[in-house]
């Protein structure tokens, strides 16, 4: 058996211990090569090699298509939405904590139905009010229900420029639980951000924006809120 055949046989786990020992005696480079093959063989038995990846998320595909239509790759950050994880829950607790205080100062939210252009899809527009942590901040959240999820266009003004290591984080609240819809920077203090929620509009009770540190070294602070009073 030549070296190439030995390697194939070793990868297939068809070699005997003494066969390998005889072949590698005095040949450290071949021994090292066979050791690397064993790593590959281990990986062939690893779950990660065989589990099928998910299909490309429709919300991601749609965001990419939208950006392509807009002619650029550099639109706002969009994160996969809909999966609630431990961090979401943690931030959720913080949201409820800070949200309770912010509610005192929150403005009444207006819900305006707008039928836009040629699109048959109703666009709901929410008015976002700055909380006590960001009284200068304001904006609107244009909500459009699509087959791929709920698209939320945030048009924001008066936002503090995030410090290094900080970002803004969009959320929708469903059954009193926050669901992440993506993170973004607002380096100019105002602008439009397109985010996507994997939950249906009918279940959304509020849209909020928090400011938080990337490294999680402080709690998220709610800076904008819009509560959907009749949904």
């Amino acid at each position, binding site marked *: 058996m030549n070296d190439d055949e030995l390697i194939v046989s070793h*990868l297939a786990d068809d070699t005997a211990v003494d066969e390998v020992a005889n072949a590698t005696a005095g040949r450290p480079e071949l021994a090292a090569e066979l050791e690397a093959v064993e790593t*590959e063989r281990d990986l062939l038995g690893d779950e990660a090699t065989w589990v099928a990846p998910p299909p490309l998320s429709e919300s991601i*595909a749609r965001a990419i298509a939208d*950006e392509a239509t807009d002619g650029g790759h550099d639109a706002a950050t969009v994160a996969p939405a809909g999966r609630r994880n431990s961090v979401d*829950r943690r931030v959720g607790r913080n949201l409820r904590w800070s949200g309770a205080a912010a509610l005192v100062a929150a403005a009444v939210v207006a819900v305006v139905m707008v039928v836009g252009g040629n699109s048959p899809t109703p666009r709901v527009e929410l008015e976002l009010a700055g909380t006590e942590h960001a009284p200068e901040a304001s904006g609107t959240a244009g909500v459009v229900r699509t087959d791929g999820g709920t698209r939320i266009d945030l048009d924001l003004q008066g936002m503090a420029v995030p410090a290094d290591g900080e970002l803004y984080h969009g959320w929708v609240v469903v059954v009193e639980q926050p669901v992440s819809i993506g993170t973004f920077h607002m380096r100019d203090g105002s602008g439009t951000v397109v985010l996507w929620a994997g939950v249906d509009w009918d279940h959304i009770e509020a849209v909020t924006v928090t400011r938080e540190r990337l490294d999680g070294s402080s709690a998220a602070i709610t800076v904008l809120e819009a509560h959907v009073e009749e949904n």
Partner: protein
Amino acid sequence: MSDRALIERFRSGDADAVRTLYERYGGGVYSVALRALGDRSLAEEATQATFLKAWRSADRAEPDRDPAPWLYTIARRTAIDLWRRESRRPTSSYDELDAEGGHGGALVSLPPSLEQAWSAFEVRQAVDGLDADERAVVRLQHFDGMSHSEIAEKLGVPIGTVKSRSHRAHRRLAARLGHLAEEDS
């Protein structure tokens, strides 16, 4: 379509090219993410985020070069970021933060299973490149731990067919993965 043509389309802002790139390299990216994060849900999130990041930095993809190392680098970085995010110690309030000295975000440096991530990526891509019948034999042998005779019985083919498919598949894998052994040795 060649990888070169695909990357040129990708760079030009063709959204359909993202789907093709995903079909071609989604398995490798997912393997890196799953190996690093050890959680299918997180790995799915990392995989989706990797392709979005790739799309947004498409101008850095070079048509003359293999896109695999570039995608791998993004996938690895994304997995590390998710790992760090998930490693944060939960906190429930400012009061709790204050009681803990104002810092509730101790970070873990790197996921423990990241050492062989590049090999995992390459092995996955190599496996995905096998014919379906060869891939089935390799999976049953290595992942399900079956003998040739058990595989023959499961697939309903003669044991000689299993052996020849296995040999052919492993020969292809060895050829495709040979550079990994050279890098390690």
